């Protein structure tokens, strides 16, 4: 797939629109996983807009994102960066043709110490 097709696919899957970004950087100011990320949230938005999806698909940043959705919540332009990350992640996972995590796996992973949000985030990241 070429860059434009990949970008359109990410936009379609995410339902988010990177063109609305005004480059304020609030997502990267917000992100709790910032230090872990190769590509920071604002950069990811810019890369999706440009169509640079392939380097993103190869990056560990996709799995460093906590899917906490703080950037989605605080973005003043409702660009929803975490949804773009999620969409790129789905492209990778779908390409591998298998689920990394299914809802059936959840009961055995339940743990009193584990925040519920982590499970939701894990499903977002590793589910199909």
């Amino acid at each position, binding site marked *: 797939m070429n860059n434009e097709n990949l970008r359109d696919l990410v936009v379609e899957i995410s339902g988010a629109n990177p063109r*609305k970004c*005004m*480059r*304020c*950087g*609030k*997502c*990267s*100011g*917000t*992100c709790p996983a*910032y*230090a872990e990320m190769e590509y*920071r949230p*604002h950069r990811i938005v810019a890369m999706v807009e440009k169509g640079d999806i392939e380097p993103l698909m190869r990056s560990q940043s996709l799995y460093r994102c906590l899917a906490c959705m*703080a*950037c989605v919540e*605080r*973005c*003043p*332009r*409702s660009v929803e960066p975490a949804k773009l990350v999620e969409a790129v992640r789905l492209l990778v996972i779908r390409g591998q043709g298998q689920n990394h995590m299914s809802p059936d796996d959840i009961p055995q992973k339940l743990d009193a110490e584990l925040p519920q949000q982590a499970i939701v985030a894990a499903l977002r990241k590793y589910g199909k």
Partner: protein
Amino acid sequence: MQKIGVFVCWCGTNIAATVDVAAVADAMRSEPGVVYAADYQYMCSEVGQQRLIAAVREHALTGVVICACSPRMHEQTFRRAAERAGLNPYMVEIANIREQCSWIHKDKAVGTPKAIALARAAVAKVLKNAPLTAGESPVAKRALVIGGGIAGIQTALDVAEAGYEVDIVEKSPTIGGRMAQLDKTFPTLDCSACILTPKMVEAAQSPNIELLTYSEVEKVAGFVGNFTVTIRKKARYVDTNRCTGCAECVAKCPARKGKNEFNMGLDNRSAIYIPFAQAIPNVATIDASQCIKLRTGKCGICEKVCSAGAIDYNQRDEVIERRYGAIVAATGFRPISLEKFGEYAYQESPDVVTSLEFERILNAAGPTKGQLVRPSDGKHPHEIVFIQCVGSRCSEDAGKGKTYCSKICCMYTAKHAMLVREKYPDVRVRVFYIDVRTPGKNFDEFYRRAAEQYGVEYVKGMVGKVWRQNGKLMVQGSDLLNDEQLLIPADMVVLAAAIEPEPGARALATMLTASMDTNDFFSEAHPKLRPVESPTAGVFLSGACQGPKDIPETVAQAGAAAIKVVGLLSKDRLVTNPCVAHSNELLCNGCSQCEKVCPYGAITYSEREVVDRGVKDVRRLASVNEAVCRGCGACTVACPSGAMDLKGFANRQIMAEVDAICRAK
């Protein structure tokens, strides 16, 4: 026998590129009543108008159709030309084949037949036109300015200077508005009060200006030149003629828990108060919600200490009614509420303040007497973070904030940062910005001075989160240019909150029948060419109620609004629109539908005697006050019996147009 002339304008290529103008003229020649048709490059030009005049005379035309741009552009031009040729100006009809045809179609195959249909409709209408004569109405030689900030003051001063009387209605106890709250003004850093208070004094002393402070507009009736306005003068419980402004009562008042509005609620004031030292009028006002005497009947200390005998607990609101020729809205702005921006911890920490609050902290008459200290503990701050665009430039679907740029924040933030660094070089100042927008004379130089000479650190990025930790404010934000996320332990955070119109503006606009945009800013009649006029005749706009603007712009606009007011008041009589409604009393069934829909209160009902087919009868009938009617046509649509009709837009004329369009192929 009507003789109609049709003129098809090319408007250069604006029309001619998508409409075959010659074909339109050709098609019109075979229309009933048309004795002359021609096309010309620019009908609005002097030559074009001369052609119209010559044709009217040569062919003894009784009516004219101009196929051209919107009647909003040149209807007046062509009516005047027709008048010069000896024709009644209301025998001119415009077929809008530009905005409604050529501009929205791409090729002649579509554009030409549509232009012919529109022209045919206009011909059908003009055949049923009757000559109309415009009436006249007198002009009340007095202006009303609503809002006593710098916009209202400047407009009133300029109107007064031209020799006309003007009233300023201000809802708070003093004039001065937002500008009175400012410490310094950009880009010159001169003291705001020092340049504002002379204007306040001038307004108070002008024989042509009457200040109605602590007053609000309750009702507006009438129309351009003839507004009747009801104003409520709220009870101050103080006789303003007696009060000397000595403030003895303020010092002794035991109720001291009222939020001090002038200091943005950063400190408290007494129940009886004078907003600030230079307040005009310099008289005390009792806040009835705080006053112990008014709430419980006990106390009365202010009355005892007042040597002038000015306190009057029995004072009541006074409602007055005045006539005005023109009204100026100058209702100003306020910072938005930050309740939807929890990430900045504004609600949690007193050390997170808005820029207007910071302005009061810097001001010598403010809650800290101008000492820069943290509101929480009164300690000197060492690290201050400014955050720009808080609530500005949000997308509509973000569910918070405003879509527009608030325009003034970049400059006042640079000012604040500079003032801090100048007075306290030990304080580290960082400004998070998305863009620094400084268009304006000496504005960008000012901002660069803050960065280069005063060492204000500008960080390209945005703060995501602020939280309290160990007596500090932890500020987490992005530094996009250095590709890092910053975590700053700050002592104070200053938020450049977006600005919005004063909330009372919406109700006022309804009273004035003046339109507003979706953000509740007053709309101008034309965004470029009529920027200080409301689309409602006789209503003008001054200052930030029309859109965010700084002091220089506000003063310029205030002067522009004033000259529009003066232009109106200088006329003894106004020509009224003859296209007004009238009721056929034989058809009127007295149902009152028209009265209910009329937005101008132009329709009244009365019992009248009529002779219907030889039989005398007394009926309840509608009648239209032609001086008040604006010709909107709402009544003609509402009338179930077809009694209401609009001159120049009669039902039969509209139907003739529809028929003509339906006939067209």
